[in-house]
């Protein structure tokens, strides 16, 4: 019964059960309070994808992608619409993380490191493209934009400077986010994890008497 073939689209649809759906707003919340907490502790980090990673581990890549998208939509709605185009970065990270976890990457520590690096590279590629193409190099007077502007003044090259800024920012930020998410995931009770279909290798034997 479990081995029924559902195909790619069917597989995506299957990820959006009610159980996964209610997880989405909560994961978005974790992303956002993770970010708020980082700034409250005056950490120079975003740490706003912990919920995305946790939802990827529980409910799969497409749920995680949606968590990423909605996190940015929420930020756009209540804080600054500049976040909207960058939702592509969050979607990409959700998908990459989700598929790599499906591939068993979270079973070993080196797998987590690999997922982190993949996610960082993807983030740099997408976010630099958006910063250059949509915003022309800067998104406002944030620390990052000022840093980019300084680099541009030094190197006279817009694209290189944006990529360099994004690389430094993402490598550290994603690294710590993955570390924290990994620690939290280890603490989730099995009884809860087993209700999600991603880790299907639970003992499903018939009730015995």
């Amino acid at each position: 019964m479990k081995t029924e073939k559902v195909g790619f689209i069917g597989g995506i649809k299957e990820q959006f059960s009610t159980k996964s759906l209610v997880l989405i707003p909560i994961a978005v919340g974790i992303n956002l309070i993770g970010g708020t907490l980082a700034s409250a502790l005056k950490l120079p980090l975003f740490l706003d994808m912990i919920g995305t990673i946790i939802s990827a581990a529980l409910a799969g890549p497409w749920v995680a992608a949606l968590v990423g998208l909605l996190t940015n939509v929420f930020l756009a709605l209540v804080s600054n619409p500049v976040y909207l185009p960058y939702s592509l970065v969050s979607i990409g990270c959700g998908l990459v993380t989700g598929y790599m976890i499906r591939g068993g990457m979270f079973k070993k520590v080196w797998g987590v490191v690999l997922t982190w690096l993949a996610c960082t590279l993807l983030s740099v590629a997408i976010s630099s493209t958006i910063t250059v193409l949509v915003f022309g190099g800067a998104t406002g007077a944030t620390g990052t934009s000022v840093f980019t502007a300084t680099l541009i003044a030094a190197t006279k090259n817009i694209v290189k400077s944006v990529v360099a800024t994004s690389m430094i920012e993402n490598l550290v930020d994603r690294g710590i986010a993955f570390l924290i998410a990994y620690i939290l995931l280890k603490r989730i009770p099995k009884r809860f994890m087993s209700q999600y279909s991603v880790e299907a290798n639970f003992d499903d034997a018939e009730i015995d008497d």
Partner: protein
Amino acid sequence: MAKTSNYVPQDSPLDRMDPRAKIYAIFCLGIAAIIFPYYQFSYLIVIGLFIAAGIAKLLKKFTKFMLAFAIPILIMLIFIQGFYSPKNVTIIADCGFAKLGLEGVEYALKIVGSLLVFLGSFYLMTTTTYTGRLVAALVDSGMNMKVGYLVLACLNVVPQMQRRMLIIQEAQAARGVDTQGTFFSRLKAYIPLLGPVVMSSFTDAQERGMTLETRGFGVKNVKPTTFVEAKKRTSDRVVQILLVVFLVATIAATVFLKFA
């Protein structure tokens, strides 16, 4: 108390307008601003948005929002593009360390103008639309209830989680968790602060799923209804048509300017 949305209830024509017409406005005006070759055009639309904000009795709030966004990004982009854009040919000023090029400045103005049209109309929509009504309107137009759930639930769940986080933060500070100290001691304080919220939220997720299921969530083959009314009036239809006509006219003018 955390804010769920920007919405400010007001008695104004913009408030009464159907949310779908406002979505049309964001896209028609935004796309028109992007495709039209002269940057001045987008600023004309921005002036229009200011007039709309005045009608919506939100002029002060709107002006504050637009300036807070426009000024920093304009300065940064004129610096980056004006001085360092490879497209620069016509030099309009020499500041010693670099030369200011006209093409770069125009490009910066064009980007900021288009962004202002998008952001301004988006902001006007969110400040004049009750989110429940927006979702009701979209459900009425055939949007899946699950999508509606996600939008509304995010707006409701997130502030609630933020409040819970604040309570934990205060409790931990009272217990003497180091929230000042060095980078690493602050990072170490992060997990005991975030952990409890994350862990309790999983039980919450499971129970909220139960609630949705017992409220008939995701029933198939039924056209869902909403408590909040979402009816398009004739005036809403007229606005929608005018917006589309505006976009088509802009496209026609752009094509004409490019080839004539």
